[in-house]
């Protein structure tokens, strides 16, 4: 909240949400809780979904025409929550309209398109930030603070697992179509790839990944991903992202970081309370800051002062895409893939 005096204080930033799916609700709640921004409207290709979301949000304007929304003078920014394959054209449209963008992860699903989006916003002088929301969760910041404070010396090995069961709807869900989602590495793997890279403060060089279609052999995505990342400074990370575990109620977050001076753990059993009932054992999450709200603040800070250091840079967003692409490629080949190859020799 420190830098908002730089922008026009007379009105909060007008933000439209594009794509009224389930993740839009989290962004909408963050907007409602913010004094620095307001929900200015809803855009969705489905008029029924757009109008329903607009009504639920207290009767804000809605449209199926993105250009119409971006043309409004009271719209300063967009939060885009559409299927991943649409991210590039929508982002380029937002950039051309001179508006700021908080893009649901991944920034796009290919490296050239991610770079094109970053370049378009650079040229427009507006902000684009990929919504790697885990960076703004309490646990991720606690781990990052500990590492930044020298708790383990120089981190050399990180393990990070987010494990759960099946959560997606039926076979028609776009996340299950690699052509629309980019695959699970782009859809969810990027959360972990971005986070460990942030924690390790190093540039990734090689990815070796293994994937499984665990829930059903017919899946075209890998609902279980294991991603090994090698870093320029000699560190390694092993990330696991699963929606293929059983029982489907499994809810697991596990962090281990070994450094030159110590070992840090966020034990799987330590981050919530265990509830044991007649129907089984479950995890009661601790109360936590709203990561979407913290993320929105970081985005608003970047909009207010584009020159200030950003919580999530454009290069971070491009790098996450490159790591996701390298993951999918490594699984396909059964071999390690260099970041140089997927970045086409050009550093983000």
């Amino acid at each position: 909240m420190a830098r908002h005096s730089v922008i026009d204080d007379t009105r909060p930033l007008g933000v439209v949400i594009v794509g009224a799916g389930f993740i839009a609700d989290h962004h909408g709640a963050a907007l409602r809780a913010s004094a620095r921004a307001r929900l200015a409207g809803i855009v969705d290709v489905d008029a029924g979904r757009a109008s329903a979301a607009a009504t639920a949000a207290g009767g804000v304007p809605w449209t199926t025409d993105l250009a119409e929304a971006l043309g409004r003078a009271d719209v300063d920014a967009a939060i885009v929550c559409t299927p991943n394959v649409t991210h590039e054209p929508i982002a380029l449209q937002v950039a051309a309209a001179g508006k700021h963008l908080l893009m649901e992860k991944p920034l796009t699903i290919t490296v050239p398109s991610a770079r094109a989006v970053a370049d378009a916003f650079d040229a427009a002088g507006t902000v684009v930030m990929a919504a790697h929301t885990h960076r703004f969760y309490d646990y991720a910041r606690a781990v990052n603070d500990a590492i930044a404070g020298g708790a383990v010396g120089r981190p050399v090995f990180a393990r990070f697992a987010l494990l759960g069961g099946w959560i997606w709807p039926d076979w028609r869900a776009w996340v299950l179509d690699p052509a629309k989602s980019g695959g699970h590495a782009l859809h969810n793997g990027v959360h972990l790839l971005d986070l460990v890279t942030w924690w390790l403060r190093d540039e990734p060089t090689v990815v070796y990944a293994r994937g499984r279609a665990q829930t059903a052999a017919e899946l075209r995505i890998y609902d279980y991903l294991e991603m090994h990342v090698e870093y320029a400074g000699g560190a390694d990370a092993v990330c696991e992202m699963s929606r293929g575990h059983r029982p489907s109620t499994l809810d697991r977050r596990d962090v281990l970081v070994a450094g030159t001076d110590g070992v840090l753990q966020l034990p799987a059993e330590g981050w919530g309370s265990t509830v044991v009932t007649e129907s089984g054992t479950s995890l009661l999450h601790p109360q936590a800051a709203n990561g979407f709200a913290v993320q929105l603040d970081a985005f608003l800070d970047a909009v207010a002062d584009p020159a200030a250091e950003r919580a999530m840079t454009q290069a971070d967003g491009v790098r996450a895409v490159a790591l996701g692409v390298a993951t999918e490629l490594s699984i396909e080949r059964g071999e390690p893939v260099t970041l140089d190859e997927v970045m086409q020799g050009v550093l983000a």
Partner: protein
Amino acid sequence: MSDTTLGVLLLGFAGLGPDQDHQRSMYEPAFEAHPGFEIVDGDLDDPAVDVVSICVEPDRRADAAIAALQAGKHVLADKPLALTAADAAKVAAVAAETGKVCLPAHHQRFHPMIAAARGAVAGGKVGLPWNVQADFLVAGGTPSPAGELANFAVYPLDVVLALTGLRVRRVYARLTTHWNDGGADDLALLFLTHENGLTSTISVGRTRELADTRPAGLAVHRYRVSGSHGVLDIDASRPAVVLRRGEASSYTTSSGPDGRPRGRLPGWHGPSTVDRLLDELHAAVTAGRPSSPSAADAVHIAEIVDAARTSAASGQPVDLQEGSR
């Protein structure tokens, strides 16, 4: 257990590096304390010797084991059984020919948490296992001059193989050095693809000494088995009494990597992993059956270690040939 008393010859007091002497630190005291064994002064020709406990230098170990087996003796061999898979295979072949027990000292599989887990997996508690994740991080102690892939990796590899019963077909590995100024690898990451498509990942290494872990104690020792119908978490730093004291302290666990409690604090009650290893040795010898683990298990682990070295050097996965040995 049979009340037969077996004569034990202690052969060699060496290990990987000048400081490692598991004969004196582990096996001699364990044999002395274990019913059914008696340490005897003698040689391979002595009929009072039933079992030879071999801790000669690793590069002579295979030959020593072969000589003992051919002399009609049973063998307990410190790990690694041999420095290469080819040498380990020679030992296994002689063990098979002679019908004598050749037990490699992969004693971590006898850890009370792990032994129970092996039963649970075999009993179908988590359905068909499809992934194992393992961490075996020791803090402090003397770094192995041969590197921790050669030294410690045998333990978690044996545990993963014992848990799953599935041989490894493909190995991708990273070897790095972060704590050991001498240059030998002190962190190995092993990405293994097993039969039936099961995958496993092992981190194994030796960090610097940590105030909250006893010197050469295990800072992290755990396994997660994911199966078609459930997940099994094994924390091998337990069972333990947890202490909070005015000085740095930690769990008092059943065993360190060498199977014995460390430091001033008492260990967990009950037999150590080395005691249970000797239980298996005695039972296999008196029953006239092969031991579990067997020399063949040590051969497969040596194949994996060899492949890991090749993979780490090339940066590419290495396929193991089925039935190559």
